């Protein structure tokens, strides 16, 4: 048995495909009732990790336990006590919402008398009660994901593995989806979700930032941001390219990035450089409305920790 508070433990998990190491010595743990995000771009190893934790793919090295079951020695035990929602969850488009839930209830052997009450409760929690008789194929992207989640929850799992559940889902539906995850977490369900969207990762309790199969950083979003060296500065200006050209090469300034109505950059010393940048732009007669320090994003952290290496390399 593992320590009681950990719902998921991952120790040195590794998986290789041909000459690509998809997951490379991953190590982290997730507490019961925690919402934990695996964050990283396509090819970072998120889906491979999910599959190994779901007991549907054997690791080459390392070990992991999920809900107390060892994924290598007892993959069937894992499968019975968790729920795994892959990127393409198998909804039956020609069945109604209610029929899809009933199908999954039968699959998981839920007794008939429990089934209807549980289905009604899940649909109500997802805000989908009035869509009970609609064909799944006629739901919006966000609704389909919520139905998938309801199906995945029919057997009241203790651990929920969600692989990119909000990809292609609009921000309003995404907020609804996260609200449901938080309700589950307060009921003690452990949620491990993956996302390629670094801004979405700000919503979780803790995250593991992955890049090319390896763990870059692992902590609560707020603590990670506080640990970033230097400061992120936003310049709001009508001609961002002119601002970039002027401050490029200033000592202590790095990662200059043109955005829609200004420039983002990283400085090593905000105290000194905020006034210096303002002075420089004024002297060059480049218009700007403000130069202010802003909170770093997870993307800023990713770029700071990967640095120049590896990003665009084949």
């Amino acid at each position, binding site marked *: 048995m593992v320590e009681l508070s950990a719902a998921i433990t991952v120790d040195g998990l590794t998986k290789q495909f041909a000459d690509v190491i998809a997951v490379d010595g991953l190590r982290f743990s997730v507490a019961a009732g925690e919402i934990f995000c695996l964050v990283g*771009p396509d090819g970072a190893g998120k889906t491979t990790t999910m599959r190994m934790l779901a007991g549907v793919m054997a690791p080459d090295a390392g070990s992991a336990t999920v809900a107390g079951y060892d994924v290598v020695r007892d993959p069937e035990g894992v499968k019975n006590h968790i729920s795994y929602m892959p990127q393409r969850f198998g909804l039956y488009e020609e069945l109604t919402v209610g029929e899809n839930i009933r199908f999954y209830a039968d699959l998981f052997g839920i007794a008939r008398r429990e089934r209807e009450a549980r289905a009604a409760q899940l649909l109500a929690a997802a805000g989908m009660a009035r869509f009970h008789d609609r064909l799944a194929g006629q739901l919006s992207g966000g609704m389909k994901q919520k139905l998938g989640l309801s199906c995945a929850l029919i057997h009241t799992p203790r651990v929920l593995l969600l692989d990119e559940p909000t990809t292609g889902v609009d921000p309003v539906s995404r907020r609804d989806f996260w609200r449901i995850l938080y309700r589950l977490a307060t009921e003690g369900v452990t949620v491990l979700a993956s996302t390629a969207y670094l801004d979405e990762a700000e919503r979780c*309790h803790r995250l593991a930032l992955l890049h090319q199969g390896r763990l870059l950083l692992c902590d609560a979003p707020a603590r990670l941001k506080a640990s970033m060296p230097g400061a992120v500065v936003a310049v709001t200006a009508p001609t961002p390219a002119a601002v970039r050209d002027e401050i490029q090469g200033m000592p202590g300034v790095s990662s200059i990035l043109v955005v829609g109505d200004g420039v983002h950059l990283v400085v090593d010393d905000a105290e000194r450089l905020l006034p210096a940048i303002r002075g420089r732009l004024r002297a060059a007669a480049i218009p700007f409305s403000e130069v202010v320090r802003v909170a770093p994003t997870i993307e800023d952290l990713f770029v700071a920790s990967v640095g120049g290496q590896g990003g665009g390399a084949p």
Partner: protein
Amino acid sequence: MSDPAAAVVVQGLVKRFGTFTAVDHVSFDARRGEVLGFLGPNGAGKSTIIRILCGLLHPTSGDVFVGGLDVTRQPEAVRAQIGYMSQRFSLYNDLTAVENLRFFGGLYGVTAAEFGPRLRWAIEMSGLAGRETALVATLAGGWKQRLALGCAVLHQPSILFLDEPTSGVDPISRRQFWDLIHRMAATGVTVFVSTHYMDEAEYCNRLALVDRGRLVALGTPTELKRTAMTGGLLLVECEPLGEALVALEQAPGVLEVAIFGDAFHVTVLAVEAALRELPRYLGARGLRCGRITPIPLSLEDVFVQKVERDAAAGATPS
């Protein structure tokens, strides 16, 4: 036509499919060299507008000019001016980078005489020098994406449409890509970006928020954050989380509550009043409060409020 610098002019655009109004009296201009983002929920009408701009669908009524051409009368000529790149770009994996460029050049009608210089330009622009003969299957995501952009602009379009162009791409490649887009826009190309992701939206000069077929907001990211929202945003730390969520949703002056880790982002009507009232309100319900502090609005907050308000307006019986 109104503005001579306008690359795209849309006036009173309406598109109906049977009894369904997909686009409902939409008007806007886009300047030469502008990066204009389209945001909106699924089914809001974004792709219908883009198909009309590409000359692929006829408007029911209204005027649409692209590069001075009327899309209804000259759809072929409009299409020759347009480049399109989707998130799931259709590169051929078992062809090399140059073979892909040649294929798309042929598709877009680039002549043999033009091809040589265009190819060199596209290779240089996309930073693919040294990888011309690499099979696409062997290229990493960031390279593939820049190659797809090269294929989409080989015929030197004056208007470029990008559909979630950097979704799933690592942040460093993504930053290189957007730098490329801004440099291209600086040469006069007008770029339309359609996306669900607010971190892509931040790269646009202006944003058009589309909901239920209508344009509900239009402005720079900063303008939208400052003027399109009612109220302000607070970070609220309060426990236990579940009960705090319910209490906050019912608190006077609270418009929207979202959970971020161990804290809430709470949209309130009046920041000062909420800073005074919320600690007392939450304390009276036996909840333990930590920090309550104003934080800057994000584009996502703007988006969610606009769309929910629009939905509420639509739900009232007419």
